């Protein structure tokens, strides 16, 4: 009966109820939307960070991270391959790379860059490279002299597809090796820095240049679910000699990004509270007014012998109904606005270089996650119920005498 009473009470003055509900709706909507927006921002940072040759898990020679040189490659990868065959879950893909810092030049220009020897087939499945060739063609596995160049580097060097670049690097034996490669294709990356930083050749081409037999610099693994990352990494660590090899997840490889994600999540919680406080003032104010409008009614109830607690309960039940309606409507509105932006995203093109500075894409697609939505709703529901206590207590303290004076 309490619920029925509360429900009818709410609709005695629909206009007032709508006013309060609208305050809750706008609050819920803003939080849902902001969480989706910031989640989209973070996700695009993560995707960009990971797709630039990181992946979910990487395996290196233990010494490689402090000293990324060709001396610290993994010279006998067969053993690792065998371990990975047994350990990796379904749907995981991996690729092997040789990475070396080089000096690139043509007749007029020169710069430093990272030369990456790839397995074209597997690389395509894992990193940004497969989707990014805009001109020319991708590398063929047997191609010994072909090279893929970023668009920015191509422009900087005033060169074109079919022309040559000279690569100079220290080889496995410690000598400076130098060789000409022919530009086969041009890739476009989300970030200009990536286009300038990396050059791609085939694994066999890299081995020939660097005088290597079968060594590799790194193995990069992409899993199909984020929660599996830590677990799989731990399993690989168990089966590999950790004195020789370092198994790291993207969180170890991109500590900046990990810290940023954590700080950002912390900030979002603070911001939820800030928005809630702003909204809370409105909720308290309007429900308080609703109570004062009904002073006579509460006075009468008390005069009929109702104890303060049932009054608190009934006012609180009303507030909770209103909160629930507001939360549902707010979620729907939030969902719709995220849906509206799903195709086109929020274009940050005017800040193109700026978003790059933060490692984000130029267009942000809001992402709604159950976890965020649950958080937002719990925050609003509990805090909303807490602040509604004040008007409820105020109502319970109305005495028949006070009511008669009205």
């Amino acid at each position, binding site marked *: 009966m309490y619920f029925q009473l509360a429900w009818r009470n709410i609709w005695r003055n629909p206009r007032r109820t709508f*006013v309060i509900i609208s305050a809750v709706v706008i609050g819920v909507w803003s939080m849902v939307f902001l969480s989706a927006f910031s989640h989209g921002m973070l996700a695009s940072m993560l995707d960009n960070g990971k797709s630039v040759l990181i992946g979910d898990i990487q395996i290196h020679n233990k010494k490689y991270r402090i000293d990324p040189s060709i001396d610290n490659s993994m010279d006998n990868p067969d053993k690792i391959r065998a371990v990975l065959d047994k350990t990796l879950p379904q749907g995981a893909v991996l690729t092997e790379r040789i990475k070396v810092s080089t000096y690139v030049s043509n007749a007029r220009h020169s710069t430093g860059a990272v030369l990456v020897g790839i397995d074209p087939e597997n690389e395509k499945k894992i990193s940004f490279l497969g989707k990014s060739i805009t001109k020319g063609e991708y590398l063929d596995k047997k191609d010994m002299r072909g090279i893929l160049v970023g668009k920015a580097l191509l422009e900087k060097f005033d060169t074109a597809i079919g022309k040559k670049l000279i690569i100079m690097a220290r080889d496995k034996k410690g000598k400076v090796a130098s060789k000409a490669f022919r530009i086969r294709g041009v890739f476009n990356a989300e970030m200009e820095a990536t286009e300038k930083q990396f050059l791609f050749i085939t694994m066999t081409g890299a081995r020939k240049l660097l005088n290597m037999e079968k060594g590799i610099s790194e193995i990069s693994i992409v899993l199909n679910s984020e929660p599996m990352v830590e677990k799989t990494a731990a399993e690989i660590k168990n089966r590999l000699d950790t004195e020789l090899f370092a198994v790291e997840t993207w969180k170890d490889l991109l500590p900046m990004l990990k810290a940023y994600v954590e700080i950002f999540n912390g900030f979002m919680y603070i911001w939820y509270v800030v928005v809630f406080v702003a909204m809370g003032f409105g909720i308290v104010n309007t429900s308080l007014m609703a109570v004062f409008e009904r002073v006579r009614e509460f006075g009468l109830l008390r005069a009929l012998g109702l104890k303060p607690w049932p009054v608190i309960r009934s006012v609180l039940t009303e507030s909770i109904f209103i909160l629930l309606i507001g939360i549902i409507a707010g979620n729907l509105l939030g969902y719709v606005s995220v849906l509206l932006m799903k195709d086109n995203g929020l274009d940050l093109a005017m800040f193109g270089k700026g978003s790059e500075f933060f490692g984000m894409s130029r267009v942000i697609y809001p992402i709604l996650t159950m976890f965020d939505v649950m958080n937002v709703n719990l925050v609003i529901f509990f805090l909303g119920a807490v602040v509604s206590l004040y008007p409820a207590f105020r109502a319970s303290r109305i005495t028949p005498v006070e009511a008669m004076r009205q």
Partner: protein
Amino acid sequence: MSTDMKMAFRNIWRSPVRTILTLSAIAFAAIILVFMVSFQLGSYEIMVNSSVKIYTGHIRIQAEGYREKRNMRFVISSPERIAKTVEKIEEIKSYSFRANGFSLVSSENRARGVLVTGIDPEGEAEISTISGLIRKGEYLAPGDRDKVLIGRLLARNLKVGINDELTILGQGKDGSIAAGIVTVKGIFSSGIDDFDRSTVQVPLSYFNDLFYMDGAVHEIVCTADSLFDVNKIKRLLKANLSEKKQKKVVVLDWKELLPGLVQGIQLDLASAAIFYFILVLVVAFSILNTFLMAILERTKEFGVMLALGVKPNRLFKLVLMESSFLTLTGVITGVVVGCAITFWFQTHGIDLAGASEILKEYGMSGIVYPKLSIVSALAGPLLVFVITICAALYPAFKVKKLVPVDAIRSI
């Protein structure tokens, strides 16, 4: 005080709890905005200053096209002539010449492709803080020849220490091979990883011979006393340099030199603006609701007033006066309290130990100081004021449209 004002004032205090709640909501939004904007502007200033002072400088004079292409041949062939013009401008605190060439730098068993920069040790010490950031060894002395300074991370990657030898292999201005052997004299740590990983500095005279520069340089880097002088210096330089028909020279300020930083700041401001706007929107809704309820509650009263001959316009004014008074008081309280809180943090700093990894990348230490300014103190509250007043208009218009008889009959 006119009768209307008196009435408005008394009306406001008819329900003190409501008034105080409304005031707090407005003040709260204003406080948050003052603090957040000050915090952002403060960190931007630190970011800009550290970038500018470590290496970039406030203004650079370069050959046209050099910045885009980084071509060795785009040089300033007679830097002394331009230096004379530069010296005439009082606002320029100091200036120095630089030349750059990409090279393969190798140690005994490591090699890296990096930017080798020729610097004039005396002049450079005036415009860049690197001389004070030497962690091992010493800074370059004026007479030094084949000595280099390298960044901490590059030293680690190349596995070299003080007095170790490095080979520089690059391309000279005329396209020929430039090769030389140098020894490490100092290792610096700027705190910006990217910079510490990719910088080698040699004396300009040595660079000149190594890369066959013929006395030419790539840029003249100038610094000013404050960011505010930069525009004036740029204007003066442009005017003076074009007089002398130095056609192929361009003057770039720090905003053009650090487009990523500037746009990063703009992006951060833009996404913050979305957050702020939504906060203000939520507050405005709270306020709108409160105003609306206050009006609904008093429908009968307004009906009586209208029946007694009060013009709808006067009622409209009265209601608007009440809400502006509330808004104004709230905003002013917010500005005062917000400034006080911000000022406290400005002197004490905010310890963001957890974020130091990120801050380091932008050249900041773990402690951030918000910076109070007219803009940061007033921009946010102004937004709150404008939006809240707009929110108050709707209920006021509603009052204007009341019909006396219906209004008196309503509960």
